């Protein structure tokens, strides 16, 4: 993994994913390690994503490294019309690793082709966000004690939600059963169902929550994002369809955990927060350990 960019979750094989999760576990036990003393990591956020940026910056700081970068392209030379290639080539002179978030799909792949230093994709449009996938896997393994043979229920926007697509691809290695709950307009695209068929993975599709999550080990909620819809009317029609309330968790398994990539809008009611089955804030903390592991592996200090 040393010096290799992480653009898509498919850049890591099963063994490499497990190495990241194991190392993240070490960092959770001992979060202050001065491994990156003197190293500089650039965080280039061409579109704002405060949560993801802070998680990465926290990870670098805990490892004793320094962070440079921008949080919004309007405050950088990008607003003067600089190309992505020029920005990447310039910043690579100042840093050992570039973490980038960009609104255009495929931008991280292109950056990894032109950059002399490795790139970590922190989200490229609706395409990929691999560090989110690894932290989701870490959260699943930590709460369930394993990754194999779990029943994973995905709820909400399964069409545009990149986090569910990447998690699906990663979990194929661990023989899960998937339960997809989504409105017709937002159901899991055929290409992913074909991939599951090809790998002999069982899945079920439903339109209503009902009792369909009662057997689940993991409930993965997603936000229905306004910006993914070209037609605002479509968004209004589906935005309130799947709201998880505490009462709906009554018949679920005792080990089940509710995950959400955050930020949530209204898809998880606040009365769920106090339920021990709610796990989304711990999930966010796991993001720091997972990113510490990814950065350490790429920079070759672990």
């Amino acid at each position, binding site marked *: 993994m040393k010096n290799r960019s992480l653009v898509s979750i498919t850049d890591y094989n099963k063994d490499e994913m497990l190495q990241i999760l194991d190392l993240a576990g070490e960092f959770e036990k001992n979060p202050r390690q001065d491994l990156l003393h003197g190293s500089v990591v650039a965080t280039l956020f061409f579109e704002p994503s405060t949560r993801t940026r802070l998680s990465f910056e926290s990870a670098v700081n805990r490892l004793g490294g320094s962070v440079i970068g921008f949080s919004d392209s309007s405050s950088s030379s990008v607003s003067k019309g600089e*190309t*992505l*290639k020029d920005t990447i080539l310039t910043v690579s002179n100042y840093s050992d690793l570039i973490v980038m978030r*960009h*609104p*255009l*799909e*495929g*931008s991280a*792949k*292109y950056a990894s082709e032109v950059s002399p230093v490795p790139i970590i994709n922190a989200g*490229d*449009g*609706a*395409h990929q966000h691999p560090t989110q996938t690894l932290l989701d896997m870490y959260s699943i393994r930590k709460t369930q004690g394993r990754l194999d043979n779990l029943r994973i229920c995905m709820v909400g926007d399964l069409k545009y939600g990149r986090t569910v697509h990447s998690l699906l691809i990663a979990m194929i290695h661990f023989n899960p059963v998937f339960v997809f709950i989504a409105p017709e307009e937002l159901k899991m695209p055929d290409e992913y169902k074909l991939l599951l068929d090809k790998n002999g993975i069982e899945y079920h599709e439903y339109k209503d929550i009902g009792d369909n999550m009662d057997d689940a080990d993991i409930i993965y909620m997603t936000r229905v994002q306004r910006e993914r819809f070209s037609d605002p009317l479509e968004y209004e029609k589906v935005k309130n369809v799947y709201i998880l309330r505490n009462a709906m968790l009554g018949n679920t398994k005792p080990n089940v955990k509710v995950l959400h990539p955050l930020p949530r809008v209204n898809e998880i009611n606040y009365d769920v927060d106090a339920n021990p089955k709610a796990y989304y804030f711990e999930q966010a903390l796991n993001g720091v350990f997972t990113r510490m592991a990814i950065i350490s592996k790429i920079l070759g200090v672990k």
Partner: protein
Amino acid sequence: MEAKKELKVNAIKNGTVIDHIPSQNLFSVINILGLNNIQQQVTFGFNLESKKLGKKAIIKVADIYFKDAELNKISLVAPDAKLNIIRDYEVVEKKVVSIPDEVTAIVKCMNPKCITNHEQMVTSFEVVRKGPAALKCRYCEKITDQDHLEII
């Protein structure tokens, strides 16, 4: 056979004849093969009658013999193209085109949010289906299909 019919485009002594091009894609073929930038004589016929295509186009390029890899680039816009290699007014070889496994710098990605449509860079696709063609962008990984194929 061909000789008995009236020739709509003059015969060439040496070179390559590209026949059965869909009329609407004639200029794409010219662009892909770079025929607008060569010194040799090029003659073409446009909107000629064709039993198979309805309207077809034909191009005759004097004194040039293309490499197969170059010819295969036109397969996306002229999948049924027939090529005759001419030496001294005789057809010495016939060829057909086939879609390559990878398509670089010819096709535009149909995803408006793809980086290739915003940055000055070369597009690149993996051909995931050959007939009708489906191309997977190497960058955004979205599929551009035959119906949405746009030549750069």
